[in-house]
């Protein structure tokens, strides 16, 4: 996680350092350099690259744990995916979820971070409280939210009752269950967004906001024209990171709705997990790998688009 954060944070478009001063390494230095990087290369290769390549191989095989061999079947798994109505549903749910979760988490995180970016008594308590959401295990979170959103005994419906809002079915309703998961995960990831935004806010030199004030800018204008652009690298980081995570949503679905009611919370990773390890008992690694590869492509495309858009809007201070 930290590795990917660092690499995204260090990313600087069109700001390549001049390479003039580069000198040739001697053979001995080469060897020493390789000795230093080898352990990392081996670990990344074994647990990162090898599975990626192996999954590609699996996706072209009829490979399940029951049969002895694993014959190559060409594009059969991919063709099956195209004709699988549940995959289409899972894609739709994954995209709807991502479209709500990513901006939702960023907005809530930004709001809290701005509110907390001041020196008042007890602030460290509030900051700890906000960050605690990321430290709480998904299982506890799921149990708490299931009870909050219980249609009959939950606090949320009780509050709705007091406010004269009609009672909702929440996790029992195919049209509402996904939104419960959105709310739950936004809550769970708020701490992460707050920490990133707080760090970025504290990196903004006061001279800039003071200069804006002297030039006659109001608080909103200062925020809009000075603070927000200076936060853009943090926003890009959050957007990319949260999107990749949203596309891989699994734990929360597994712990709460298990894809239900009536397939309404099937998302891609949960569905491929069912194909490989559970549910229908087919242990179809070939098909699951094909879905995994499809998701891999979606993640790459989304990330590329985000970086391309980011190039226009992200402002880096030198």
């Amino acid at each position, binding site marked *: 996680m930290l590795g990917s954060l660092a690499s995204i944070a260090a990313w600087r478009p069109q700001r390549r350092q001049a390479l003039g001063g580069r000198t040739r390494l001697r053979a001995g230095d080469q060897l020493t350099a390789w000795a230093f990087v080898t352990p990392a290369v081996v670990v990344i290769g074994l647990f990162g690259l090898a599975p990626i390549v192996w999954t590609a191989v699996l996706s072209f095989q009829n490979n399940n744990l029951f049969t002895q061999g694993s014959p190559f079947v060409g594009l059969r798994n991919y063709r099956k995916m195209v004709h699988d109505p549940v995959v289409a549903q899972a894609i739709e749910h994954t995209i709807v979820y991502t479209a709500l979760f990513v901006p939702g988490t960023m907005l809530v995180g930004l709001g809290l971070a701005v509110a907390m970016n001041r020196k008042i008594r007890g602030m460290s308590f509030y900051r700890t409280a906000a960050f605690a959401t990321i430290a709480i295990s998904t299982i506890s979170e799921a149990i708490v939210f299931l009870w909050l959103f219980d249609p009959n005994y939950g606090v949320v419906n009780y509050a709705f009752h007091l406010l004269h809002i009609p009672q909702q079915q929440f996790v*029992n309703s195919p049209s509402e269950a996904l939104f419960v998961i959105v709310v739950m995960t936004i809550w769970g990831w708020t701490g992460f967004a707050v920490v990133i935004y707080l760090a970025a806010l504290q990196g903004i030199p006061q001279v800039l906001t003071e200069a804006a004030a002297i030039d006659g800018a109001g608080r909103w204008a200062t925020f809009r024209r000075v603070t927000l652009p200076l936060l853009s690298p943090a926003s890009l980081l959050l957007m990319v990171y949260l999107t990749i995570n949203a596309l891989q949503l699994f734990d929360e679905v597994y712990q709460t709705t298990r894809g239900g009611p009536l397939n309404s919370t099937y998302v891609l990773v949960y569905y491929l997990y069912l194909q490989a390890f559970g549910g229908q008992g087919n242990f179809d690694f070939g098909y699951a790998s094909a879905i995994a590869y499809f998701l891999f492509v979606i993640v790459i495309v989304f990330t590329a688009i985000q970086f391309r858009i980011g190039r226009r809007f992200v402002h880096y201070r030198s």
Partner: protein
Amino acid sequence: MRKHWLSVVLASSVAAFGLAACGSGSGGGGTSTGLQIWEGYTGAEGKAFKHLLAEWNAAHPTEKVTSQFVNNDYSLPKLLTAIKGGSQPDIAYVYGSWAPNVAQLSQVVNLTSVVQQPGVNWSDFWVGERDVATVKGKVIGMPALVDNLAVVYNKTLFAQAGLQPPSPNWTWSQFVSDAQKLTNPAKKQFGTAYVTPGSEDTVWHWEALLWEAGGSILNSTNTKAAFDSPAGLESLKTLQTMAVTDKSMYLDQSDSEYANLFNSGKIGMLVTGPWDLSGFPSVKYGVQIMPSFPGTTAGHQTISGPDNWVIFNNGSAHVAAAEKFLIWLTSTKQSTYFSLATGDLPIRSSVQDSPGFTQKMDQALPGVDTFISNLANVKQARPQLATYPKISTILGTMIVSVLLGKSQPQAALSSAAQQVNQVLASGANS
């Protein structure tokens, strides 16, 4: 989502096939025939099983059995991975619903002639157990556990509503009307509950109703769906009345809250199994067999979900020792001990018949005597097909869509029957 699940999935599949490549092939080890058994017992069951193992090991020093804990829910993927790597255990506890899939494995030992040996007394096991241990005429396991569904009701709530407690010859229309009278929206109190994750737990509750209404899941040759019938319609309509019309049924998406709610006095009646009884210390409950549908000859039935001990081939010496151990473990003496120590239902009818057994069981776990006598109402088993998990998924969706008021019973039945026929026509692995 917090962990990179994709990479976990990929990494574990690599690990699985890495094992396959190595192929160590050392099953239970060395020259002595030490056996390894995979089981998922915890608590009282864990203690009782340990006791039995110690007893066996003391008497059989050359055929010692060592056990390894494997959560039953995850044992199948683990087993299949071990088999690919040639390091399968000698014996494993396997869910009955996986029997048809496991039967396809060449490493599974055929026990058909073993259970006919003198002293095993195969017909002493309940018919539901024998059905689930047998796949296409081949016995692939010995019974490990048996259960069934009956109605557990809250005596206090019945008295408060001025209702007579259910009698052994009650009907589903009585159940529906009792459920309605036990419902009190102001107190958030429900007449009954149903689990709606759409899993096999959703499905088998309905299958019992289908059988009681005189229906079947598939035709006699397991080639076509048979549940799209008047019996199917009656069973689904009964559930629909409570869930949609009367709103007397608490729908439990989580598949676990219903037990807490019953124990808090919020639910009047539950259709459930003996495993839940120990979770109801706070309420005064009674147990009654399932109601029947009048006008059918099907009478009072129930459904059972037995599990099996399965032997995997690690050479003839290991297989012989494993067979000997299982015959000993499932004998009347050992299974009587295990039932009394754990409250698990007796796996043999001779255990039930042994003097004082039922009274002792009921003292330890009130109401379990009804579950024991209800074993005689297990008259059918689910289809023993490798495609059953797929059929179950379709049926789960059908039931949940009716209970949530998203479809009408007849439309749901027709659509599900069509899908099941497609699965049956296309065969096992497609």
